[in-house]
């Protein structure tokens, strides 16, 4: 039997880049085929070619032995290919059924929508593939994992046989991710075929039947979970030996550097995004903040760095109350900050690397004497930092925006680490970075800890938090559900906490929330 999908010799050239270089990929009936590669390796380009968003310069696509004439996503869809996007394409105020039928509506009496018939089909699909769902629920009321199910049902409703999952676990808790694995298994058991795009090695090994690794637009190799382990896959992705294990040496914990008490921070919609949070970070330790994206981590970091003024509570940095301090005051007391969104907050993309390296110290000696910037000194420092932090750039006057993500992050790391600080707040420090850069940043964080700095690591990557932290605070809906010792906990345990299930701290949290309510009313 012919494979359900065959990509042959796909080549796509963008100005200056060979995004896809003679890529071959076959998807057999009923298999989960993982497409593994770093950001920028060409995974997305390949899928965009399959969906007709780009035209390949060379190569052909066969679906069940038939030539696919690409040109529009419609062709791919009608040939039975469907994609679950990383960011869901759902209308929150529509019901599940309405979302599913959108664009492919069943009608009766001419142009009247037949919701009942559509709901019946949704129900039928959900039963057949074990995708538990209420067709009449509103999407906005559903948890993220269930919303993803709606996306899957949408594809099945359109009779897709080949399902492409693009980084599907990025937004899920570990439990939801496990559930997704079950769903994917049940789908292939019923004859569907799946391409699973990811860069998470663990997941690949857990779920895939076959693994194709691509690097810099080329297929590096195809393997199976039986033949590979995380280290071999990582080496294939990066093209060299990678040390995934972070070696942490025991560091004597010192004084309390950062102390947070009953902190309440409102988000832009004036809801309490951080709700009565307390913790402390000591010198020489990494406190990891774990949690699914959007559970108040962003607002917490903004409050700690002076970018958002908290409604209530206390933040003490080196014994000084900084809860209402400006970002500059906090920086000057001795806090370094790797921001969550490096392009929005961390860099001025149109500035040179040299200027970005002095972004928050430009007014200090030796970079400024009186009001006048000292160009020579700035350039000299830039040369040193580029060398020391291994920033790959043609020159120090290159615009930050033209660097790769990893090198952009290195510019920020160089800037923040070259100052003498007692606290480092690192928010999603490795988001979107390639394995090599991740490795580098991890080692830098460990080194910072070793030098007696306190490190607050906020990350939605559970693996990262588990590996680097000494203690882990888990955030869920604005609260810290529990703080656990990293060595004495398991991934499953933290996963439960991330879902808001606290085996021993339930009573404590209830109390805290009562107190918060009182505080809130007082402050209004």
């Amino acid at each position, binding site marked *: 039997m012919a494979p359900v999908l065959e990509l042959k010799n796909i080549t796509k050239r963008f100005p200056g880049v060979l995004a896809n270089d003679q890529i071959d990929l076959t998807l057999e009936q009923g298999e989960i085929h993982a497409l593994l590669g770093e*950001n*920028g390796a060409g995974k*997305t380009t390949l899928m965009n070619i399959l969906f007709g968003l780009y035209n390949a310069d060379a190569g052909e696509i066969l679906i069940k032995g038939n030539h696919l004439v690409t040109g529009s996503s419609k062709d791919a869809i009608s040939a039975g290919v469907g994609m679950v996007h*990383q*960011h869901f394409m759902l209308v929150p105020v529509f019901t599940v059924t309405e979302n599913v039928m959108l664009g492919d509506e069943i009608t009766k009496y001419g142009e009247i929508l037949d919701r009942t018939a559509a709901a019946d089909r949704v129900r039928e699909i959900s039963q057949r593939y074990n995708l538990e769902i209420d067709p009449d629920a509103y999407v906005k009321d559903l948890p993220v994992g269930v919303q993803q199910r709606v996306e899957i049902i949408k594809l099945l409703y359109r009779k897709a046989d080949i399902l492409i999952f693009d*980084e599907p676990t*990025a937004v899920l808790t570990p439990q939801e991710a496990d559930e997704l694995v079950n769903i994917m298994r049940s789908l292939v058991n019923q004859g569907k075929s799946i391409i699973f795009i990811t*860069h998470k090695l663990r997941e690949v090994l857990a779920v895939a039947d076959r693994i194709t690794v691509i690097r810099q637009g080329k297929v590096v190799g195809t393997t199976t979970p039986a033949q590979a382990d995380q280290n071999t896959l990582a080496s294939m992705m990066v093209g060299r030996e990678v040390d995934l294990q972070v070696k942490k040496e025991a560091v004597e914990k010192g004084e309390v550097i950062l102390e947070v008490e009953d902190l309440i921070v409102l988000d832009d919609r004036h809801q309490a995004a951080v709700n009565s949070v307390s913790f402390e970070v000591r010198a020489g330790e990494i406190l990891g903040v774990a949690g699914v994206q959007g559970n108040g981590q962003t607002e917490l970091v903004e409050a700690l*760095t002076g*970018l958002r003024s908290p409604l209530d509570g206390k933040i003490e940095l080196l014994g000084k109350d900084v809860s209402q301090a*400006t*970002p*500059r005051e906090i*920086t000057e007391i001795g806090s370094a*900050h790797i*921001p969550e*969104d490096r*392009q*929005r*907050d*961390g*860099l*001025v*993309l*149109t*500035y040179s690397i040299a*200027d970005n390296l002095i*972004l*928050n110290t*430009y*007014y200090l000696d030796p970079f*400024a004497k009186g*009001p*006048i*910037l000292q*160009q020579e000194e700035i350039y000299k420092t830039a040369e040193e930092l580029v060398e020391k932090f291994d920033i790959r750039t043609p020159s120090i006057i290159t*615009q930050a*925006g*033209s660097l790769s*993500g990893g090198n952009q992050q290195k510019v920020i790391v160089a800037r923040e680490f070259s100052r003498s600080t007692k606290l480092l707040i690192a928010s999603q420090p*490795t*988001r*979107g*970075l390639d394995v090599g850069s991740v490795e580098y940043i991890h080692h830098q964080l460990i080194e910072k800890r070793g030098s007696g700095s306190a490190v607050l690591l906020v990350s939605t*990557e559970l693996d990262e938090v588990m590996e680097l932290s000494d203690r882990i605070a888990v955030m869920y809906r604005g609260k810290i559900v529990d703080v656990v010792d990293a060595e004495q906990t398991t991934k499953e345990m933290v996963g439960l906490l991330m879902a808001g299930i606290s085996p021993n701290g339930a009573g404590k949290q209830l109390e805290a929330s009562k107190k918060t309510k009182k505080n809130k009313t007082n402050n209004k």
Partner: protein
Amino acid sequence: MNETKEKAPQKNAAQIFFEEMRGGSVAIPILAIISGFILGGLIVAITSDEMYIAFQEGSTVLGLKIGFNEAVEAFKALFIGAFGNPSEIWAAFRGGDDIAIQAAIKPFLETLVQSTPFIFVGLSVALGFRTGLFNIGAEGQLVIGSVTAVWAGYAITGLPALIHIPLALLIGALGGALWGFIPGWLKAKTGGHEVINTIMLNFVAANLTFWLLKYPMLAPNRTDPISPDILDSAKLFRFFADEEMRFHIGFFIALALGALVYWFLFKTKWGFELRTVGSNPDAARYAGINPARSIIIAMSLSGALAGLAGANEVLGLNHNLAPAAATGYGFDGIAIALLGKSQPLGVVLSALLFGTLRNGGNTLKRPPTSVPIDLILIMQAFILVFVAAPAIVRTIYRLREPEEVEEGVFVRGWGGS
């Protein structure tokens, strides 16, 4: 981790517009100017009766030839009007007669005089652009600057020129600064958009000025709204005794300010702050810069530069103030800043171009060419269209997309806070 997070933040239409505009080095403005001139020439040709007569009575070739000649004649007149007649200048210098030399270079000097206010307002708007602000209020700030300067010129007495002139200029700058400070403060404290507020303040400035000139500042023995003449000690120094030769020191003050603005923006920490706020306000906040403060400073400085434009006019040329003196310089300032890519040097060059066109246009409208002055405005408009829509120029001249984006002009659009 996900790849979409790697994309730059969402841009709104205004950001894209300004990014496009500031990209692409100097090639775009220069080609835009050339294109503007070509189209201007075409318009001269197709609006001339002679060409149609030639088409009807002669041949097509003759028609085209006449049309071409008309355009060439117009540009010749424009050139002579703006720079003087080269052969006359040559002859005058050879003759060595002072009077003849003066007469010969008068058009050129007059062009510099006409360019001076353009330099001031262009710098004013450019400084705003650099901080991410769209100062449409240069016009109002200019008017207020001219009122305060003219007041300082006639009301403060007993000072030597060496003190009186700088003082009057300073008071003019302060007047403009106040008129810029108000929308800056409103933006920083309330988020009120500077475009709306500066437009509104333009009307306030115009009407306030009219009232001031009609009542408290009315010249003795006059009924029409006009201020008294300023004292001789407040008049900007002129280089020639001849009343007709208006060339005064204001031009050099404008050039010095261009250098000063460049130094301020690119060599001082204050400029670094303003440019950072203009390029990425989020990163500015992260870096400990107070964007609200930067906005107020930038609007005040922008206002001060516009105010100096007004002061320059009343202290250097008119020596009194009538309401009609508001000539739309403030709006030309926007055009000049755009054409000059908000670079001080670019602004000075653009201002010289605008001054050239304005002065040359005066010759153009007189016989023998008799081309309406509107042609100049049409050409300016074409140049701006081409600058603002570089895609057109890139297509016409087959330029490649720029790889690096120039830093600078970055204005957040409507509703941006």
